[in-house]
């Protein structure tokens, strides 16, 4: 099974994982790591490396990071090539929920990363506009 690490500034990652668990049940194989402002970068990289190694059961590790260009994502990118991992940024709750049903079947790390990106983006909409369009069409 592909391993998953949720990575964020502060406690966002663990809160997302916990919230997702309340909605869909436990997400096996997913763990969270918080990056604090006071952590030296080298330290964060070291801890992430350990967690990635522990999470990798042979099929690689998907890192979901809170934002593109943020420290969490940048540290994860340092590991690309040294470990079998993909980094997807802009992590949101729909992506984490999707993990619960996609991890069991996912065998290809790159495909899983693309699926979650697609699903995460698909959930960002101006919902009130969609509703107005529907009400006008009706």
């Amino acid at each position, binding site marked *: 099974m592909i391993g998953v690490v949720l990575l964020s500034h502060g*406690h966002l990652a*663990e*809160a997302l*994982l*916990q919230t*997702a*668990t309340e*909605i*869909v*049940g*436990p*997400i*096996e*194989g*997913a*763990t*969270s*790591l*918080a990056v*604090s402002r006071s*952590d030296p970068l080298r330290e964060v990289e070291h*801890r992430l490396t*350990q*967690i990635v190694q522990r999470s990798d059961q042979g099929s690689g590790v998907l890192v979901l990071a809170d934002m593109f260009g943020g420290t969490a994502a940048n540290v994860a990118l340092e590991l690309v090539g040294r470990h079998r991992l993909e980094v997807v940024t802009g992590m949101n709750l729909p992506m984490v*929920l*999707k993990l*619960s*049903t996609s991890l069991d079947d996912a065998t290809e790390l790159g495909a899983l990363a693309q699926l979650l990106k697609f699903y995460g983006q*698909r*959930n960002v909409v101006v*919902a009130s506009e*969609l*509703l107005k369009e*529907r*009400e006008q069409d*009706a």
Partner: protein
Amino acid sequence: MPEVYFRVDPRLVHATVMNAWVPELEVGRLVIADAKVLADPRRRHILHMSAMDEVEVEFVVPARLGLRLKEGADALVLFSDVDSVMAAAEGGLAIDELNVGHLPATDGRSARHPAVHLGPRDVGQLERLQKEGTRVYLQPLPNDPPLAPFGIPRPVAVKRPRRPAPRSPSEGGVHRRRLQIVNERGLHLRAAHVLAHAAGKMSCEVRVGRNERMVNAKSLLGLTTLGAARGSWLDVEVEGPGAVGALDELEALFESGFTEGAGP
């Protein structure tokens, strides 16, 4: 004949249904059996949108459910309350199994499960359904065991067996924070005792350590071997029930210098 599942859940189309039950039951449509929703165009639009085109969403009055379910894709029928289920049954629908998946704590209901509250009226109606041959159970999430609705809480067998339980009960895996030792004497015996005592009361696993060396925080002996002095940082890992709340508690304990206060 399509395979049909019945669930009471007044949230109707929402995150748990779309992300947990639809994939679990492999249904192609959601049938909302609710007279009020059927008469409320905005509510229908919102629920329809919420399915994000992943399944069909249909609306019907409960009394007409039987006809609607004779053909078409496998379906999950959603009721807002037990009243709607009764209306469907009175309309001639045979309900083999009914999952009371969610009922909020209102109208004098009391908790039968954190997500399922039943009042005297619900209980009376559900008992009637059971007498008429419906197997009634409570199962908020697919990973939860289906429970008997009355009497001693016990698991009941239902037609869709639940998935194998995760290896350890967890709040979505392992949670970690890095916490600093702030009290003057560091993690000496007394402080370690306070920490081990607090960890011992937590139902989740708690591990503390540095680099690759993690020890069980419930073990005083393990903690004292860490030799963590003031100013050093420790990784704290929790896993299992109540993990995140435990992490908050542990963070407060570290910040309080294990009740000794921050050193000068």
